[in-house]
């Protein structure tokens, strides 16, 4: 299983992304990410403006799941792996 993570927003509007293998993630972070991806409720954005949003896609043999995750609940270690596209 792998996760495709794309960061959007921020004042700069500069996209950043990466693809990570699920097995390389800290188990607790992966569990948090899975809980967010499996949430039946849509995760609405953080209040205000210029906040980061993470578009996370889980790819596994059973299919793809994509969800927007606001930065305030995104596991920081996972968020930190994205690389800005400059």
């Amino acid at each position, binding site marked *: 299983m792998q996760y495709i993570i794309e960061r959007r927003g*921020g004042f700069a*509007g500069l996209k950043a992304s990466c693809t990570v293998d699920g097995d390389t993630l800290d188990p607790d972070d992966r569990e*948090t990410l899975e809980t967010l991806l499996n949430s039946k*409720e849509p995760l609405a954005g953080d*209040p205000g*403006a*210029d*906040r980061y949003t993470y578009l996370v896609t889980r790819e596994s043999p059973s299919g793809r799941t994509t969800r927007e995750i606001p930065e305030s609940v995104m596991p920081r270690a996972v968020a930190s792996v994205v690389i800005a596209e400059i």
Partner: protein
Amino acid sequence: MCACGGRFIIPTAVLTRLAEDESIPAESREAMRHSVAVEESWRGLRNAQTEATQSSLLARGITSLRLAGVLASVPAVTVYDCKNTRSLPGSPVSNPGGSSDTTAKRAFDTTRAVIDFYGQCFGRNSIDDAGMTLMSSIHYGVRYDNAFWNGAQMTYGDGDGQVFTDFTKSDDVIGHELTHGVTQFTAGLDYSDESGALNESISDAFGAMFHQWRRKQTVVQADWIIGAGVLGPVAIAKGYTCLRNMAKPGSPQCLSPQPSQYNEYISGGDPHENSGIPNHAFYLAAMTIGGRSWEKAGKVWYAALTSTNAHPSMDMNEFATLTRAAARSLFPRDSDVYRGVDDAWTRVGIPVADISV
């Protein structure tokens, strides 16, 4: 003006469920519990403040608490230090205007200047036009590459030192963030689709005007770029000169090039992408009208933003219509202003539709 219902937050049920998940570290769960409490408090405070302000205005048929005589004469400016945590607002900085921390002093001085800019150019008393205290938090997070408005205050990261530096270094960034507050208390533009792009564009336009106003620049002298001061050495070495360019939104020297024409609108795009279209319209209007941007073009944009016909889901065509109407009503003897505004929107692909508003 709208009596909007506040902005969305993460469902507390999700945070609560995560906070109760024992497979998640205790520290993280505690942070989530804290987030639930803090977010609910912020939401309540923010909604109460915004709705009380806007409902009062609507009920009385006025567009400014300043006119209602309930303002604080001089808005207070406060600065807090997050000390590289993500806990807002952080610890208060005493006497930030005299601080040895250049970031604290810069946040304080520039925020004060934004207050002066809105007061002197548009007759506005702080972001809510009622003397609201302006709170800034600095040193947010570790190498945090962003600045944001959270609905109640400004927050600035230090940058990673490579692509970005301290986000207080560009005064247009500070003007941009504070203008999100102005938008929240006026049109209340939704942060998605065309209204989201307008929300971002208004922050860029007033941020750029603030930058020009401090330097007393004419529209010809101005550089019309956003965020030049926050670029780090890696970005500069690669030839980037700014984040966005209102004159040339698609310039390859921008870290975040944008569309400049309505037929290039990106459906479902980030507000920071599609803001290039109204950004370019403002630039074209200001250049055609001439002089200093805040004297005519800025007044037209401000009148549209604060119009009683402005509403949260306003699209670009509706906003363009409001600016055309404002140009006529504010400058009835100066037809060049209307022509400049009309021509600007037409050139970005939003021709006149209806001037009856």
